[in-house]
């Protein structure tokens, strides 16, 4: 009985609630059947909302499950963000799933389980719990990518994601085993206490493998190859989900692992992060130029955006991690918004996804065009939209850390990427109109209004949010 109390289960209330909710909804879903998918979906959304509330209201910090799990401000910040993104993705998938005949109750459930995996990743305080959380998330995502098992593209996306994901998990495990072998522990707390400036070669190799595995999950160059294919192949709301929530979880995990246990080895891993960050920014900018499919374009855009966020991590400072959190939060809102527009790209009931389909949208559906234009300007980093502030914080951290060259490459890459962002605006505003899209569904409209509002006016009252991310980041640098 004593050992049960030692587990400190109270700290993991959001996760425990999500696990129970997912299992209960599974039973309900099976007994109700596919016709009542909407109920299961809204219940999943409600569960995520409750999990958010639980995460916000619970301010106790500490370790649970004998040190495998940590609850702190950093974890809460990231959890709220990924739960929110997941909830929005489920809401956006509702209409789409029904229209495309993929309305199965498993879909929201799997997304719920993936969210649980994300929460565990975010709160991982041990290489083992890191891996368990990561796999729970990944396995759910593999299935979700292939949810339209009757189409070639979706199954291809799922399979590709699975094979490459398994490879990266292998690398991650190999790295973990090297770290364990050379230090004798898997616990972040123990590693943080025992490691200092000097590191053995084996440990460095272990960290490099760990970084490779995590870079795959955030789709950073050179482990990005799966992204465009999976983004294009997966059903659009699933792509929206992939682009937002798991990225937040993986990148915050990345930050926790590197800054926490290996914080004193910053000189060892900094070069790796600088490389993947710079490479992602450049590839994300250049490779997107030739894309004709808007989902592929968003894939390259997300690779580039992850590169920018990693600039914050590369600086290895509290300001940097705070910048990373701010960048990812803004990125999530922009991405959800942009995908809401992509989901609204339907003609006579058929989804279209070529950039040329957007031609003249400003005349047929001015609101939709204005919304996408705002997201594109924001992604290009044009003030006063929120995306500018994300870039401001990460590049400020880079300059404060003396990474001037990284900052210069980064801003120049952002100019290159601005080219394809404003090309989309050009297609919508300057070109002759194509046939109009179908009416935007009320749920999508709601998501759009919310995201446009945040992106356009967020800067007026951003101060409390920046304070929040700063205090969340300070947790990792507490000692």
């Amino acid at each position: 009985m004593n050992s049960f109390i030692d587990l400190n289960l109270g700290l993991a209330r959001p996760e425990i609630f999500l696990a129970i909710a997912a299992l209960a909804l599974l039973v309900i879903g099976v007994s109700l059947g596919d016709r009542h998918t909407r109920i299961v979906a809204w219940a999943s959304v409600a569960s995520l909302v409750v999990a958010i509330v639980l995460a916000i209201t619970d301010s106790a910090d500490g370790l649970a499950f004998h040190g495998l799990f940590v609850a702190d401000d950093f974890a809460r910040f990231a959890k709220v963000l990924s739960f929110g993104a997941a909830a929005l993705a489920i809401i956006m998938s509702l209409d789409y799933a029904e229209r495309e005949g993929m309305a199965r109750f498993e879909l929201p459930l799997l997304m719920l389980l993936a969210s649980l995996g994300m929460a565990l990743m975010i709160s991982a305080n041990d290489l083992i719990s890191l891996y368990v959380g990561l796999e729970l998330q990944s396995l759910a995502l593999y299935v979700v990518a292939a949810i339209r098992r009757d189409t070639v593209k979706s199954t291809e996306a799922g399979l590709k994601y699975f094979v490459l994901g398994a490879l990266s998990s292998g690398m991650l495990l190999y790295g973990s085993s090297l770290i364990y072998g050379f230090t004798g522990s898997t616990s972040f707390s123990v590693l943080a206490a025992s490691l200092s400036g000097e590191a053995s070669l084996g440990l460095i190799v272990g960290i490099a493998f760990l970084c490779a595995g995590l870079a795959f999950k955030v789709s950073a160059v050179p482990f990005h190859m799966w992204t465009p294919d999976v983004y294009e192949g997966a059903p659009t709301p699933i792509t929206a989900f992939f682009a937002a929530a798991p990225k937040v979880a993986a990148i915050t995990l990345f930050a926790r692992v590197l800054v926490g246990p290996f914080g004193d080895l910053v000189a060892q891993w900094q070069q790796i992060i600088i490389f993947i960050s710079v490479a992602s920014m450049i590839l994300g900018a250049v490779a997107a130029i030739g894309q004709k499919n808007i989902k592929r374009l968003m894939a390259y855009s997300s690779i580039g955006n992850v590169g920018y966020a990693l600039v914050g991590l590369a600086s290895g400072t509290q300001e940097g991690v705070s910048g990373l959190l701010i960048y990812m939060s803004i990125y999530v809102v922009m991405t959800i918004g942009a995908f809401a527009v992509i989901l609204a790209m339907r003609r006579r009931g058929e989804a279209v996804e070529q950039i040329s389909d957007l031609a003249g949208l400003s005349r047929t559906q001015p609101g939709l065009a204005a919304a996408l234009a705002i997201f594109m300007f924001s992604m290009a980093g044009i003030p006063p939209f929120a995306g500018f502030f994300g870039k401001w914080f990460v590049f400020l951290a880079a300059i404060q850390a003396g990474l001037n060259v990284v900052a210069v490459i980064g801003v120049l890459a952002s100019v290159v990427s601005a080219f394809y962002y404003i090309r989309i605006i050009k297609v919508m505003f300057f070109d002759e109109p194509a046939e109009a899209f179908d009416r935007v569904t009320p749920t999508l409209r709601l998501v759009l209004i919310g995201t446009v509002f945040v992106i356009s006016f967020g800067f007026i009252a951003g101060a409390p949010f920046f304070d929040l991310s700063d205090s969340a980041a300070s947790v990792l640098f507490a000692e």
Partner: protein
Amino acid sequence: MSGSMPILSLTTFLPLLGAALILILKGDAGAVARNARYIALWTSLITFAVSLVIWFQFDRSVVGFQFVEKMEWLPLLDINYHMGIDGISMTFVLLSTLLTPICILASWESIEKRVKEYMIAFLGLETMMVGTFCALDFVAFYIFFEAVLIPMYLIIGIWGGPRRVYSAVKFFLYTLTGSVLMLLAILAMYTIAGTTDIPTLMGYSFDPAIQNWLWLALFASFAVKVPMWPVHTWLPDAHVEAPTAGSVILAGVLLKMGAYGFLRFSIPMLPEASAYFTPLVYAMSVVAVIYTSLIALAQEDMKKLIAYSSVAHMGFVTAGIFSMTQQGLEGALFQMLSHGVVSGALFLCVGVIYDRLHTREIARYGGLVHRMPKYAVVFMIFTMASVGLPGTSGFIGEFLVMVGVFKDNTWVALLIATGVILGAAYMLWLYRRIIFGELVKEDLKTMLDLSLREKVIFAPLLLLVFWMGIYPISFTSIFGPTVTDFIQDYGPRMEAVAGDPAATTQ
């Protein structure tokens, strides 16, 4: 002195209110277009009226910032919403608020499609322009400065000519490239000095070793915006393709943002680096004046010709600024105002005949004086002002700049003076080809002279050209004391560097 009314914020954000009103217009397309036009016109007129309060309440004897407003914005970073104007920025605020209603009137009939969006873009643009000149926080400045790209990109791209997409994208990317480098400079300054407050930074001494890098980063942005040779190539394209009103704003106000940047940031914050790079600026200014004047001589397109003349005139401005003499700086400021009015008016003159014949090719015109005498007079006056005829605004600016530059460097003054001669050549030749000669072309024989609306547009600009030319003290008294103080503050620091042989390239 400014009372309790936040007059600068009011001037800045009033246009946005009008834009919001236009945004919610609904109903029949014709009615929406008409209402949008009227709302835009009234909003910009009211904004101008409000900005006149600045003109009258501005204390000309005071050096330093007036009408200051300060509000906490991002306390974590110590970034504030800080607005204020001094003698340098005050006139630009008025120039922006004056040109906007004129532009809206000029677009009254020529813009037929998507009037609602057009007016929203223009009012948004006005907010950004006024904000740029009022902002006293570097971040706020950057936001306004950069946000200008959004409406301007749309104005060129949607309502522009045949090659509008190419021009819009070129304009956007050129300016953005410069601006992001400026962003890095802001970040670096913030890292070093711990603030983005402009008055504080103006008094801060940066390490000379880092100054040169910061200066170059700022220069990248401002040189593109001015634009200085060789990064001016976006300007002719943008001007040619933009609708008339877009060209007016581009030439009248947006180009001034670059020169304003030199005066507000480069020289006060980085005086040592500014002294170090003065020869570079001189060289680029001289090339701009002579080279683009020669290019202007060869143009077949009216708008392109005036666009190149803008580059040449802005060459005067940059040379005047970096001469760091009382006359040079006052001349540069005066020239900017004069150029804002005159080149804006010249683009409007082109717009008048473009609206009638829908071509900008010089060869398609000729002999207009027979059909359009009033137009010929108006065009003549602005041509003379552009050439720098005494009695018009152009003369004062160019003359003061040359005096100022002569005091600092006689060779530069000599070379720049050739620009006046070349300017007379291309402008008078343009005028001759369009206005004089026999009226032989059939389609010109039915051209109508200026309408009432067009007369209303030109009247205030004509008034200003003569007012500035005949009684310039109304304007020089605004920036004179500030310029004197400016030279006292930063001149010695620049001279200290210029006197050191190791630090100059001469």
